[in-house]
């Protein structure tokens, strides 16, 4: 039986990298006594996969992992058992049973929504709702990004699904492609806004929270973004 588990990551947990979070969960699941399935072979390991790695320094309200279990009682039981093993800064939010034919979490990821706030003393004065609307209204957004092979230039627009600024909150909301094919870092989009307004960009200014990770519940042509847990159901 496959479960999709949603969790949040805040505070000092921002400084724990993706691989270490995986190691952390492997141990937490053992401590919680969850009847997880193991691979066969000489050194069996837990059947577990994560949706989309979260960069160091980012917070999240919408992380996902899939695990396979041999037995289960109920969603609340599962959530409580695992939460009893969590450290400060990490909470289990939901656990949903997946249909047998569900694609794994990583392959399912289509997009992610981020909130970008600004560090005290680094608030960009030029940013307004109008400025961001103007940015997002462009038909093409050419950006350069660093890759292992050097710099590449491409049009980001098809991968940027939404972009809006909240004047009252002074925060930016972004929905970007997060699939393995077209993954966009939120900071790259923010940098493009700064560049267009000739403002000096500093990565450190951004306080980024991933709010949700989505799958595509529609079709290739008419996509419909739904949270990754959408295809599962509560159990027990």
């Amino acid at each position, binding site marked *: 039986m496959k479960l999709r588990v949603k969790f949040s990551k805040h*505070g*000092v*947990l921002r*400084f*724990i*990298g993706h691989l*270490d979070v995986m*190691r*952390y969960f*492997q*141990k*937490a*699941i*053992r*401590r919680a*006594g969850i009847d997880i399935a*193991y691979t066969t072979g*000489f*050194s*069996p*390991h837990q059947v577990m996969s994560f949706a989309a790695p979260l960069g*160091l*320094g980012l917070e999240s309200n919408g992380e996902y992992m899939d695990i396979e279990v041999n037995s289960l009682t109920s969603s609340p039981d599962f959530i409580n058992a695992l939460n009893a*093993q969590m*450290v*400060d*800064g990490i909470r289990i939010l939901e656990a949903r049973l997946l249909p047998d034919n569900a694609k794994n979490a990583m392959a399912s990821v289509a997009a992610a929504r981020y909130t970008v706030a600004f*560090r005290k003393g680094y608030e960009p004065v030029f940013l307004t709702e109008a400025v961001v609307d103007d940015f997002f209204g462009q038909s093409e957004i050419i950006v350069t990004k660093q890759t292992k092979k050097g710099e590449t230039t491409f049009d980001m627009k098809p991968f940027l699904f939404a972009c809006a600024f909240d004047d009252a909150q002074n925060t930016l909301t972004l929905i970007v492609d997060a699939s393995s094919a077209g993954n966009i870092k939120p900071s790259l989009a923010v940098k493009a806004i700064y560049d267009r307004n000739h403002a000096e960009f500093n990565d*450190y200014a951004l306080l980024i929270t991933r709010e949700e990770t989505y799958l595509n519940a529609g079709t290739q042509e008419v996509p419909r973004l739904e949270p990754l847990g959408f295809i599962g159901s509560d159990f027990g």
Partner: protein
Amino acid sequence: MRTLALSDDILLKVEKPARYIGNEVNSVMKDKDHVDIRFAMCFPDVYEIGMSHLGIQILYDMFNRYEDTWCERVYSPWPDLDSVMRERNIPLFALESQEPIKTFDFLGITIQYEMCYTNILQILDLSKIPFHACDRDWDCPIVIGGGPCAYNPEPIADFFDIFYIGEGETQYRPLLDLYKACKKEGCSRTEFLIRAAQLPGLYVPQFYEVTYREDNTIASFTPTVSGIPGTITKELVTDITDTTYPEKPVVPFIKCTQDRVVLEIQRGCIRGCRFCQAGQLYRPVRERDADSLKEYAIKMLDNTGYEEISLSSLSSSDYSRLEELVNFLIESCNEKKVNISLPSLRIDSFSLDVMEKVQDVKKSSLTFAPEAGSQRLRNVINKGLTEEVILEGATLAFAGGWNRVKLYFMLGLPTETDEDIRGIAELSDKIAMAYYDTVPKEKRNGRVQIVASTSFFVPKPFTPFQWAPQCTKEQFLEKAYTTKRAIMEQLNQKSIKYNWHEADASVMEGILARGDRRLCEPILRAYQKGCIFDAWGEYYRHDVWTETFAECGIDTSFYTTRQRGLDEIFPWDFIDCGVTKAFLKSEWKNALDERVTKNCKEQCNACGAARFGCGICTVPRITNL
């Protein structure tokens, strides 16, 4: 939520920020307003090394069981953070509360190897605690050192208020109570230290005076305050089953050297290998009861979620209920999908059988530590392992599918000749031969792989070799070349790989290991010139050390290559570790006569440790007087 001592920009810039944020599973948070004593426990090396140390986990757990005490951890900031902290004037902090070390009541430092001495100074410096104990007032924590290097604390004597000689479980409670009483009475720091110096096992260096002879050896070592003992006897736990052990060890986020549950099955060792300090310091051997170990194993696995468990001891094969314990672990670990790792097991049919069950034979290798190449030299060092036993074990293993062997030797042992060194190559070759004789061609999985490694011998205090001269760097390197040449001459040389260690660091370790108080100055100066992380090859700066000794007018050969007289007073002679100097002397003589001494299980050799009245010494046996 806790506030961190380091700002986000620093944490995002340094390597592995998880080293500095605490918050790990099973780390202990307390309300600082509801405790009397804040204790910072330090391992002066990087987090991943320090977190792997069992002794700290034991003491951390013990202290935090005391309701009036909150024990936190602190490790050496890696050089990248070190320079940021200096630049921005950020004081060193403890992981749990993230509060400055300077505000603590105690700073306990475990001293596991000589090459961490400059890291101790880094800890003091970043904490803004004066280097010299005599310059500290009540605004500073009491700096207390422990661990194996505390058995010769003299090279770092100036930097510590107290050294705790022996096992930590026994005297900390009385010390904390004394501290509380002194604070209540409004005692001076000096008054507190005088009273602490009267507790068993505690050494307060500032109350002792050393005088020297013209030849630079020690003339006298005496207390300067009345009522303080001239000899400090080590502390030890007599019943180690009935002592505290962490059921919930801290589980780090990042991968550490020791990434598993560690079960200490016994303390001490029955064997008296003459080069080995641990074998003498922790006498007598004391076993933990297997039934309680089984309980601990299950509890610790459940409380940590670790996927591996390891047995810890100096020589696990000597543990009397090993088979029973290992079989229990195999059974319950199989159920829990937990791996077992069994270091320091002698290779025989039992251990091979176990290894076959717990690890992938194709991927694992066999380890032998003959330490010396010839039987003659193995008799000198009292290493019981014979060529016959090694070849027998290897043959058994080859038949079972193994084809990788690791061999460990030392170069520069007392009385060593080129003949002994060639023995390293010959033994390696014989093992290769055994493989080709045992495994028929069609069953061979490529060549047998033999890796022979040599380290350079460093004489240590409280061993029969404490009188022995150490080799010079040139001698060390010459010996390594001799080994290399001899291996090249072997028939199966293509199957043998040879590794040797740096010679400079071994010379340095030798200076510090048998050093005296006069080394405090060069150690401080070398630190001030930027030496830290000397145990890390990439940071060790031999040129700076050499230059510093010269500036201080110190001839380092006095500490290393000099032949010490049998009646010389050593800097560490004021410590009584149980084993008597007379016994060590007779063992030194036995070594030169190439005479083997039996182990504690075969016969008692009246080493002196029997007076503790525990462990193996209380088992009726033949005594050889």
